[in-house]
């Protein structure tokens, strides 16, 4: 691509990653969550591919796959945290510890330290979606081309 596209991509890739991280981090307070933020952050990989070509994303295949596996394992482990009650029981909600502040019923400003196991699950699913979508994009770029490559 031309130098204009490459310059704008250099600016927009960190912005896309940052906005995806924001959407994941505030997933339990504002619209958004792991899937949406992960999709936004994975668009950075697609932007890299469009702007810099296949060679720029060739090295990202293994890290993205590892990220997806780690996200899936973390999600299942967080589900197993509540196995004393039921699978996926929210043990951290209202416990007073990490992410355990109780929430006043009704409209409130929203505090980041609430949600129990939901914010860690948001991060796990967010990493999983970043890894999954990014890996799909990279795989199409590497192996989906013409016959003579």
């Amino acid at each position: 691509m031309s130098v204009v596209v490459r310059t704008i991509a250099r600016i927009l890739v960190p912005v896309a990653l940052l906005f995806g991280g924001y959407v994941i981090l505030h997933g339990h307070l504002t619209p958004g969550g792991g899937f949406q933020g992960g999709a936004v952050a994975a668009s950075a990989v697609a932007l890299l591919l469009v702007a810099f070509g296949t060679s720029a994303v060739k090295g990202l295949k293994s890290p993205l796959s590892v990220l997806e596996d780690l996200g899936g394992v973390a999600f299942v482990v967080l589900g197993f945290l509540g196995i004393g009650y039921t699978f996926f029981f929210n043990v951290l909600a209202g416990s007073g510890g990490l992410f355990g502040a109780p929430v006043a019923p009704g409209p409130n400003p929203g505090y980041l330290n609430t949600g129990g196991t939901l914010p860690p699950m948001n991060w796990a699913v967010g990493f999983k979606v970043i890894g999954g979508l990014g890996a799909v994009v990279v795989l199409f770029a590497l192996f989906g081309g013409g016959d003579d490559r």
Partner: protein
Amino acid sequence: MIGNLPFVVCIVLVLLGLWALLFRRNLIKVVIGLKIIENGVNLYLVATGYVQGGVVPIWTYAPPDAAMVLPTPQALTLTSIVIGLATTALMLAFAVVIHRHKGSLDGRKVTELSG
């Protein structure tokens, strides 16, 4: 009839996708038709949960004394969107492989499994 016009519009979207699915030969256009069907169904599901004058089901700075729309269709539509994305990736991969083996994207030429 006029009270449920959004449902009819979603069904029209589904029918447009079905038309592309039935009368187009290019596999990429077939995939696009499937995505249009899926988006119509997702819109229909979200429209099912709308409450008159409702706000988003989020309590952060929610306006007091406002009805909230139903959250369950939204949550399940989120699931549906991600699964649709996964199936789209698989379908496009199959289209790439068919183009690699056949040299064209015509769906009528894929006849190995027809009886």
